[in-house]
């Protein structure tokens, strides 16, 4: 059987891509703005499609269009949120957190116990790295699935787009201030919790990721500051492990993977980026998205199977023929 000559070319280009990406990461920091991410993902996917039939390229073009529309809608939702003028939720999320934690503010509690302004502990670095994975893991998962298994990519992106869509609607309808804004004494006038510090970038700086800090701060300037509910950081941290969980055989590894979203939410609360309820709502949306699409896909399979059985006169329950 002749070996596909493009296979080796693709492998060589993938290796060059990884080396180039690592070099850029060390020299300039992580790429997080949407355009640069889209370009880097685009290069990866184009390499994966080199030598493939034209039909695959046509499918790729359609997929990329859908993918771009998805992110454009997400970006635009920030503007829609401003124009829609739904009332800003100031105390609601804090009140829910206080209810969940018997009157305690988890952000304040965590920072009083563990945060030291002049010292960066190991857990500060762990929390920063966990936060930073938000910009990497979903993109890697999408790009790799795109290249390796289109059917799985479709399953992934259905769930992902649903999560983003519902989140965007929530950002517009229930704009909510995050804890750092609720506590800010200089720029805002809410002061509904004790002072907390948004110290997310300290760990990155300590780890030498200055390029990332610069890009991240610039992204924050352009972002929707009152998009606390749901926390997409928490949602994505659950989404990626949950999608790949059925492929993992070891129970311990499964448990470890499911610790990751908990670690993410704890980090977000510690950094005063989010309320606990933001993360829980994010988790719930992931669950709903997975449930809905699993139901839909099962239904599709059942209908097709029934249609096939009817046409061939097969019994509803197949004979126990071993294949």
């Amino acid at each position, binding site marked *: 059987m002749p070996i596909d000559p493009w296979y080796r070319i693709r492998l060589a280009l993938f290796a060059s891509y990884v080396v180039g990406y690592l070099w850029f990461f060390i020299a300039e920091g992580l790429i997080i703005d949407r355009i640069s991410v889209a370009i880097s993902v685009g290069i990866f996917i184009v390499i994966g499609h080199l030598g493939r*039939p034209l039909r695959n390229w046509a499918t790729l073009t359609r997929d990329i269009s859908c993918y771009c529309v998805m992110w454009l809608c997400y970006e635009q939702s920030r503007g829609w949120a401003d124009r829609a003028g739904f009332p800003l939720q100031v105390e609601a999320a804090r009140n829910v957190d206080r209810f969940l934690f018997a009157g305690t503010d988890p952000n304040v509690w965590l920072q009083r116990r563990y945060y030291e302004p002049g010292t960066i502990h190991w857990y500060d670095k762990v929390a920063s790295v966990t936060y930073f994975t938000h910009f990497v893991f979903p993109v890697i998962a999408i790009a790799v699935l795109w290249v390796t298994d289109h059917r799985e990519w479709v399953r992934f992106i259905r769930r992902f787009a649903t999560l983003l869509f519902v989140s965007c609607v929530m950002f517009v309808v229930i704009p909510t201030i995050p804890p750092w804004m609720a506590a800010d004494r200089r720029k805002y006038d809410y002061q509904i919790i004790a002072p907390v510090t948004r110290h997310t970038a300290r760990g990155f700086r300590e780890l030498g990721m200055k390029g990332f800090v610069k890009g991240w701060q610039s992204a924050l300037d352009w972002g929707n500051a009152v998009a606390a509910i749901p926390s997409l950081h928490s949602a994505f941290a659950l989404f990626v492990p949950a999608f790949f969980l059925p492929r993992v055989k070891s129970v311990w590894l499964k448990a470890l993977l499911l610790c990751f979203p908990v670690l993410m939410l704890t980090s977000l609360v510690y950094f005063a980026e989010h309320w606990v309820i933001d993360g829980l709502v994010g988790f719930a949306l992931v669950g709903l998205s997975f449930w809905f699409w699993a139901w839909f896909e099962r239904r599709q*399979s059942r209908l097709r*199977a029934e249609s096939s059985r*009817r*046409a061939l006169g097969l019994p509803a329950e197949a004979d126990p023929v071993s294949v």
Partner: protein
Amino acid sequence: MKLRSVLLDRGFITALLDPADRAHTASLGVYGALVESYQAGEDRLVALSTVLSQYPNGVRKGALAPVATTWVSRRHLAVATSIDSVRPELALTLVMLRREGIGAIATTLHDFERFDVEVLLATAVNS
């Protein structure tokens, strides 16, 4: 859990849809079990576009509803044509199995047993 992809070859589909075919009953048995595992989310059923294009939409949305299309391109055909050691139809099927990463084949032929692929054989009892 990784899905098993099963390719239904031309002979298998012909036997499945033709009650007069000697392997019809056997292919119905194999297909019934495959449809069951398809519904359970364990198998993905595929057939080549060159095979499926011969059947009207009614059949494809009826008897073959669970079967997805694997598109054969000119490049695939060219590679298959370059293989002299086996007949063209078998060569194309082998090329598609390799290129599309399909690990199993439902067939009425013994030809595939010498290749590195899981064979789900549907042959007439007295064949």
